[in-house]
């Protein structure tokens, strides 16, 4: 179970730090990409077992773009190999923000949402759950 690779794609150092500590304590190897581009590059480099993805980075929907790129259904996509990597999406989107999404396979292919602020226990539980469910 340990030594599984987790990639955090988040532009906020502090949030990344707050997540890194409990994940490392639980024995995971944690990588981080500080932007959508760096994140996508890291996916290919690291081949993570699970991705934690922030919604709002350089643009309000950057996280959505990353998840759509990774889950692109075409077999010729350069990310085709990473299609089934579970994605946990971090949201702090308040209900009155114009953009509202719920997990929906069709439009937003992510496995679960994590609400900010991070609750370390809840984070670890979600990570464990989705690593176990990960299709082989």
């Amino acid at each position, binding site marked *: 179970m340990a030594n599984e690779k987790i990639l955090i794609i988040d532009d906020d150092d502090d949030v990344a730090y707050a997540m890194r500590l409990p994940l490392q304590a639980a024995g995971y190897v944690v990588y981080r990409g500080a932007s959508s581009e760096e994140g996508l590059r890291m996916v290919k480099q690291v081949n993570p077992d699970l991705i934690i993805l922030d919604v709002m980075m350089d643009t309000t929907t950057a996280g959505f773009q990353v998840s759509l790129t990774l889950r692109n259904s075409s077999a010729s996509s350069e990310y085709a190999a990473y299609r089934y990597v579970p994605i946990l999406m971090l949201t702090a989107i308040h209900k*009155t923000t114009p953009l509202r999404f719920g997990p929906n396979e069709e439009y937003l292919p992510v496995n679960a949402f994590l609400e900010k602020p991070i609750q*370390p226990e809840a984070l670890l539980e979600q990570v464990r759950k989705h690593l176990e469910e990960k299709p082989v």
Partner: protein
Amino acid sequence: MVSSTAWLISIRWWAGLGVLALTWLATMVLAINLPALPLYGIGLAILAYNAVFEVMRRRLLAEGLPHAWAFGQMTRLQIALDYVAMAALIHFSGGLESPATIYFIFHIIIAGTLLSPRATYLYTTLAVGLVGTTAALEYFGLWPHVRVPELANSGLYQKPLYALGNLFFFATALYVTAYLVATLNVRLRKRAAEVIELSERLRRAYSRLQTLYENAQAANSTLELAKVLDRFVQSTARAMGVRACSICLLDETGTRLNLGAAFGLSERYMSKGDLILEANPLAREVMAGRTIITADARTASDLQYPADAVAEGICSMLSAPMRGKEKPFGLLRAYSTERNHFSQEDAEFLAAIATQGSIAIENAMAFQALSQLNEGKSKFVLTVTHELRSPVGVIRSLLRTMLSGYTGPLADQQRDMVERALHRTDALQNLIDDLLDLAAGKSELGIPEERVKVRLDQAVEYVVKQFQIPAQEKQIRLEWHCEPANRSLLISATHEGIERVLGNLVSNAVKYTRPEGCVQLRLRRTDSEIYLQVSDTGIGIPEEAVPHICEEFYRAPNAKAIEKEGTGLGLAIVKNLVEHWGGRITVESKLGQGTTFTLIFPTVRD
């Protein structure tokens, strides 16, 4: 003409009967040697053609629209026949020697009363001609003279001087009568026309007063600037009875007027451009406070867009200043498709309309400025709270990570401090969330969700279920009733919003009600509204606090004593949302006994 025809006919009955009666009197009683037969014949003929005219008159009337022209012709024909009858009467009663000649004066008066002066003189000439011809025929022996020795010296008709003299006085009497009647009649008719004109002017003045009043009502019925302007130009065009009306408002620079609203003008004309004071002498004059009549747009030299006006079919214009408290702020203009349409009276009327409308428009402009300011404030709060939200979230994440021991074990005091810090940031987070809700609700940016039809009874049931556990923990009875309603309880709102509204009200009620108390929700509907009451048996709101209870950041002192923390924004959000959906909220409370909030929503159809 219709009534005068009837009048003429009614007189003629008497004339005909008079001829018959006089003939009888003269021949039978006075034994005057008159040709009775022809005279009776004339009397009967008069009665006969009068009967024909009466039948014609009735028929024309029965046809519905009485034809003025037909009645005119009839009158002329009647008078002509009367003249012929009169001439015959004169002939058979002694020609020039007959005392009946004087009766022609009646006919002249009748013609003068009913017909134009020209026609009167024409008929006078006809009368003189008829009598003159009769006299001439008798003189030359072409028509046998009827001798009436009892009445006149026989043979006088053969004395040329007598005949000519008699004829001369007869003619002059008739002409003078014709002149007098015609002149008097012209004066009378002029007077009558003046009375008609005067009453028409009075009617117009009344209708203008009425429209002025309606204008004021239309303009004052709303505070929305665009609507005020629209209604104002529309009702002004109606009041002035013209095709189009527009209002131009001075911009911030004070150098140009741009179109505020228009009625009855084409898209093309409206987009012709702003009125630039420097290039528009007329607009300059108006902005200096004068009302200007442009009698003919084609020849006016003080217009900025004369060609456009001509192309639009505008021939004359009337422009009046809209005056604010300090200086003119706009130009009101009426457009007519006729040249020289506007009188000085119109100018005064438009100026009055402008003065009156200015107040309503200035109010609306002030209201718009305030609304924009308020909107700006809400946007500012929205932006700031968005910016605050993220770092507060990060601080909470970091503190929680530390509290969970991932940074190493914490000493008791350290743990206590981190917990306190986390507690305060949690409160801060709540405040920010409430502020966001409030600002979003007030700003056009916010509440992005489309309103939908929400079943209020379902929403109440859902929220009541959510609060059952906290209520039970405090041993508070939480229940809801819905008055038997087979009618729909649909309102226009958002699901999330209504949950927030109900959640806020119920959580307050539970929070400020002592154990063993009771919180009740009641739903009922009337034809047009749905009432939701949330009542508790709680601590109540002090009387002086009731008016402020829905104000932002306001918390009643007794509520603060019970619950230290609280943003004071919950009820402001509730009020804001309810009003946003077209509803309203009222509060009743008695200190120490309880509080009832009543939400009133307009119903919506299925």
